[in-house]
């Protein structure tokens, strides 16, 4: 506060409120480790063609089910496709689905949650719908949606997003309910600020920190769900190399060629672990209220 009154005279840069928290977050070991893993995976996904890979869908009937750490770094599958190349290219789909589902559910959940938290009339109805959606097991809803609307990257992403939306709505709504009683919101109302502006300028920024935390968790669970959908045969079309698809094809050969499941499994687990650690680190620094609870 003292800094604010002096800032005109003394040439000290006054950091915006909230800046400190980001600096703090960037020093958290969880954020650093998780961020490192995620960045590494993103680089692998982007530069997949440069990482000594061959065409991930190239069939080679002569080189079926070759062991790893031979001529083929991570072995080959039942069609003679190179597991290493497939796993590297598979990172693309996982990251796209994870990030896509997180962004999509946050955008929709933020909108619905802001409206629901502010208007009592809408709230009762919206929350009943969210309770109902939450009662349906997420994976079942997702596989039903995919099987009904046809498997593609977009339908899988949407199907994974829908079960995640209620959690975001609840989170945003709980923030809105507490913020709408704050004096600065009352002040904004009393000087006649239009309602959309109040929601966007004064209420919405308060949801960002918890939403970023929630977003990382959604990203982690979306990547797992994508793999599960592909694994069950209700996911992204099998000709696209995704970690789930590679593992699904390895099911039959598991006893003789366990590496087909093992390597994509390791990549998937490491990526999800990285995102989860990142989320825990962000939660501890950005959202101390939540950190105390869980």
């Amino acid at each position, binding site marked *: 506060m003292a800094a604010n009154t002096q800032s005109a005279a003394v040439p000290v840069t006054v950091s915006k409120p909230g800046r400190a928290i980001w600096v703090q977050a960037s020093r958290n070991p969880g954020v650093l480790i998780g961020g490192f893993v995620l960045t590494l995976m993103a680089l692998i996904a982007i530069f997949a063609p440069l990482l000594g890979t061959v065409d991930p869908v190239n069939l080679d009937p002569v080189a079926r089910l070759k062991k790893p750490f031979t001529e083929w770094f991570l072995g080959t599958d039942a069609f003679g496709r190179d597991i290493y190349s497939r796993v590297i290219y598979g990172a693309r789909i996982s990251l796209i689905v994870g990030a896509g589902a997180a962004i999509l559910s946050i955008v929709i959940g933020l909108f619905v949650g802001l409206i629901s938290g502010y208007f009592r009339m809408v709230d009762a109805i919206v929350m009943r719908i969210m309770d109902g959606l939450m009662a349906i097991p997420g994976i079942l809803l997702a596989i039903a949606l995919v099987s*009904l609307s046809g498997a593609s990257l977009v339908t899988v992403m949407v199907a994974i997003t829908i079960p995640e939306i209620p959690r975001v709505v609840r989170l945003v709504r709980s923030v809105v309910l507490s913020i709408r009683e704050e004096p600065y919101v009352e002040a904004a109302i009393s000087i006649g600020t239009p309602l959309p502006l109040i929601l966007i300028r004064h209420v919405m920024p308060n949801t960002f920190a918890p939403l970023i935390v929630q977003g990382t968790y959604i990203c982690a669970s979306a990547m797992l769900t994508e*793999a599960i959908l592909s694994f*069950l045969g209700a996911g992204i079309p099998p000709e696209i190399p995704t970690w789930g698809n590679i593992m699904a094809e390895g099911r039959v050969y598991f006893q003789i060629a366990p590496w087909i499941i093992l390597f994509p499994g390791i990549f998937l*687990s490491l990526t999800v672990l990285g995102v989860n650690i990142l989320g825990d680190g962000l939660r501890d620094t950005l959202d101390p209220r939540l950190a105390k609870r869980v």
Partner: protein
Amino acid sequence: MFAFISRRILATIPVMGVVAIVIFLLLRLTPGDPAAIIAGDSATEAQLMEIRARLGLDQPIYIQFFSWIWRLLQGDLGISIISNIPVSTMIAQRLEPTLALAVTTIIFAVLVAVPLGVIAAWRHGTLIDRAVMIFCVMGFSVPVFVLGYLWIYGISINLRWLPVQGYKAIGDGFWPFFQRLILPTLTLSVIYIALIARITRASVLEILDEDYIRTARAKGLTEGRVLLVHALRNAAVPIITIVGIGIALLISGVVVTESVFNLPGLGRLTVDAVLARDYPVIQGVILVFAFVYVIVNLLIDLSYTFFDPRIRY
């Protein structure tokens, strides 16, 4: 008290109503004619008309909905398109493996997770606490089916201690039945243990700061008594709550675990129905799972007064 119970039971009706609407709309709002999807590519127009009439698709949508609900309330979940067996019969046939797996998993997970969480909170900040927290975050990160295959590879294929896959009904003897549930339980319970241990640790940690814990220690109670009677008992409500919320996680896990271990349960039924596009079965199973989730959480809400007498309604 009675007023609360009846209000809480009534509150489940809108939730189940929304579930029913969502499941009903799943089939109606997806692009394409349901009759054409059901009949397959080679159907003639006459066959399509016949299917539409049989499913009531020629009626207005609200009539379709209410007649569906009416049949549901009478326990009629419809008839499988593929096998022509009533869906309720199919579910009853597949109930045992799923129920067995769910029950062993819940028991095992609670027995492991609660002590883990209590010890982690008690030895807060030590190596044990760290180890528990690392186990928890790993448990959330390793996909259920990868874990399942690792167990099969290590225990069944390499060590040959347990059968690889499959299921034996409890009627065929307890040991063959139980033997085939060990690995599925170990697989499914990991994520559940992670969830419960984390909440147990957090809530016990909070309780250990309370004045009455200091009082209990000051009057010379043993640590065991302080932890179990004073701390754990007061931390019971959030733990029980998470066991209930975790049922959703468990149901999702059941679907995957049954596929990995070839258990002929409800999860396997769902996956087969999805692959065969057997819509009445998909709807029926999802409805039953959602119903179980709602009922379990209702019972847990009602049990709060038992675990925490301070809660009065």
